[in-house]
């Protein structure tokens, strides 16, 4: 087949296919923007001389201080996780129509390999379109935002540019990765002239083993402080690496744990299902419990990070408060060295990133919901034709979304906060060696005998524990559940069109 024919076949389709292509391109554009932003931060040059010298042309310390730029770039790169999750969910949009189209290609004489290449090309081309649009947006945005203030300082690194090979790599590598992932996903899919066959292995009942991953993460975080105390100031890189791996394992455990939670809530719902809506939701949850892991992965990861950040914020706030009190007692009035304020500003940025991640994750959830409704449209249309109220189907979808998401959100918040709290130990103030008199006051006051009656004793300091940031955790949890509920409500609006009588005539 000629390349032109491949491209034409990859880009034909109905409105749903166009929506999938557009969303794939949008995801690729967002991912490209995030990677370009991270590369821009890394492209900032440290002034010659001292490697720790600040780049004073920036207003933000995250860009100014060379030691913080790596972490800032990493935090920006983390934003690509929900974006890539969105891309993965977009790939499922309109799958039934695409399957019919691929089957029609086979019926017209295309080989299985050609059909796979058409599907891979579709994703690759849409992603390429997205990364080019992302690069264009980056270059235009960079020129528009490049406005030094009265001190000649910049808010963003608009004076530096990643190298040309780096730019080319972003534009080309992302579509290649997207195409490779599509090819990987199609390994178990065979397009035949009569339809698309998925050789899916029937997944077993989920077990609660992801709890071990969470425990591993918490254990890693719990060991951090004793190791830090034992090592003094010289903490080795492997300790940080282990904590990071542990935190990653814990977040993975939360995401995979949703499979077990879905199954469990599904069984519970089924046991007490008094209405058809709950019965439908319960069976969907037990039939495909991993759908929850796929659907809520990005949302839960964002919540776990947000809860961890809340624990860090509580720690920094306490430290700031104690330092201010200490300085006030020492006569420095309300002096603060500004270090905690800097960390608190950094936490603001983390919260902003978590907010953006939640919005992207919720967009992915909407795509997933609509896809789920579209895939079941014929059965739904038949039920509605038989007299089942659309409201019943709508309520079943709401149950299906909300039943696992509430415990999953609690789990994510709990795991994230525990990790953050473990890495933010209690603050001890005032602990020191102090003289204690072991005799009468007169003897201890006598300079000749004092030394034999006074003993130096290590007095415990006052332990200050950061309070549980209930307000922030509740805001995160309630916000996530409310956003999920709103999204599910929006998804349910598609029921009307998906249960139209025309769906009964579709083959």
């Amino acid at each position, binding site marked *: 087949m000629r390349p032109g024919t491949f491209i034409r076949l990859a880009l034909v389709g109905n409105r749903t296919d166009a929506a999938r292509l557009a969303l794939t391109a949008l995801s690729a554009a967002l991912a490209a923007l995030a990677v370009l932003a991270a590369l821009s931060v890394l492209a900032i040059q440290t002034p010659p001389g001292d490697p720790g010298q600040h780049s004073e042309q920036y207003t933000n310390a995250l860009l100014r201080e060379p030691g913080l730029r790596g972490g800032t770039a990493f935090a920006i790169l983390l934003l690509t996780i929900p974006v890539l999750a969105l891309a993965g969910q977009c790939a499922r949009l309109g799958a039934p129509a695409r399957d019919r189209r691929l089957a029609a290609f086979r019926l017209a004489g295309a080989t299985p390999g050609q059909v796979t290449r058409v599907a891979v090309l579709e994703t690759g081309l849409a992603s390429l379109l997205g990364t080019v649009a992302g690069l264009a947006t980056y270059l235009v945005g960079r020129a528009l935002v490049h406005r030094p203030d009265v001190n000649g300082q910049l808010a963003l690194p608009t004076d530096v540019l990643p190298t040309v090979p780096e730019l080319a790599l972003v534009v080309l590598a992302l579509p290649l990765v997207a195409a490779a992932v599509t090819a990987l996903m199609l390994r178990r899919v065979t397009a035949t002239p009569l339809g698309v066959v998925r050789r899916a292995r029937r997944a077993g009942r989920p077990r609660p083993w992801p709890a071990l991953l969470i425990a591993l993460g918490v254990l890693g975080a719990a060991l951090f402080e004793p190791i830090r105390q034992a090592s003094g100031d010289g903490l080795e890189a492997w300790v940080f690496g282990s904590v990071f791996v542990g935190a990653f394992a814990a977040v993975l455990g939360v995401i995979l744990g949703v499979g077990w939670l879905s199954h469990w809530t599904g069984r519970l719902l089924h046991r007490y*299902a*008094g*209405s*058809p809506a709950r*019965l*439908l939701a319960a*069976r*969907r949850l037990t*039939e*495909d419990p991993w759908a929850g892991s796929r659907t809520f992965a990005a949302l839960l990861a964002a919540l776990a990070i947000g809860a961890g950040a809340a624990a860090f914020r509580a720690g920094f706030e306490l430290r700031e408060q104690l330092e201010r009190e200490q300085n006030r007692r020492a006569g420095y009035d309300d002096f603060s060295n500004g270090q905690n304020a800097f960390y608190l500003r950094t936490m603001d940025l983390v919260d902003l990133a978590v907010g953006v991640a939640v919005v992207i994750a919720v967009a992915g959830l909407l795509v997933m919901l609509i896809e789920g409704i579209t895939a*079941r449209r*014929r*059965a739904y249309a*038949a*039920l*509605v*034709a*038989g*007299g*089942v*109220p659309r409201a*019943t189907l709508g309520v079943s979808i709401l149950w299906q979304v909300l039943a696992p998401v509430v415990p999953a959100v609690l789990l994510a918040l709990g795991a994230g906060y525990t990790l953050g709290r473990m890495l933010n130990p209690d603050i001890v103030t005032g602990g020191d060696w102090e003289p204690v008199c072991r005799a009468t006051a007169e003897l201890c006051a006598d300079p000749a005998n004092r030394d034999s009656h006074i003993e130096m004793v290590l007095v415990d300091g006052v332990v200050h524990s950061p309070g549980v940031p209930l307000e922030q955790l509740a805001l995160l949890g309630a916000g996530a559940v409310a956003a999920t509920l709103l999204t599910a409500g929006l998804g349910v609006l598609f029921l009307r069109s998906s249960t139209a*009588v025309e769906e*009964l*005539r579709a083959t």
Partner: protein
Amino acid sequence: MTQLQARGLVKSYGPTPALRGVTLDVAEGEIVAVTGPSGCGKSTLLHCLAGILRPDAGEVSWHGHRIDTWSEAARSRLRRTEFGVLFQFGQLVAELTAAENVALPLLLAGTGRRAARTAALTWLDRFGVAQLADVRPGEMSGGQQQRCATARALVTEPRVLFADEPTGALDTLTGEQVLTQLVRLAREQRTTVVLITHEPRIAAYADREIVLRDGVIDHTGLGLDAAPLAGGPR
């Protein structure tokens, strides 16, 4: 006694007319087959009679009450309580077991779970698929799925069953088996059946055959071209 009545039904999809003035009476307990070439308006007529679609013009009456003017909720309630609807394929909920699929209309009507399951098992047994009660549709053959769907359409003991090409996706033998059972049970229950088909052999099961062409009734009579099938109910 006339149970269902259509007067001058007109329905178009955009500029394409599907029905152009169909008038029809269906008596209680009657089995009516609507036949005709593809695109002649058979399914549209069934959808209008069942209250799934509203005609652009004309009237549909149920025991003398016009239902085409009713709200969608009222028509849904009518379909849930008085009608059963059966389609060609894809109508079972993939995640529910056969028994749960069949019990669904009863649960919607407020029947308790245990009673609904008992009734579902009875109907599955009548169609010879009781052993599949706890099996999901994906693990059944097309014929078994259609038997379950037919059991679901009849479980509420509807007064009218609307069947749109119910055996269209089945092989000849399985299709005849499903239809034989459906017609036998409908006659036992005195359920009226409006059956859409384009196969004369299937139409031969009916008391009356209505042939549609280009959105109007071309002629009416008995199964015209085919002899009744061996063991057929007529």
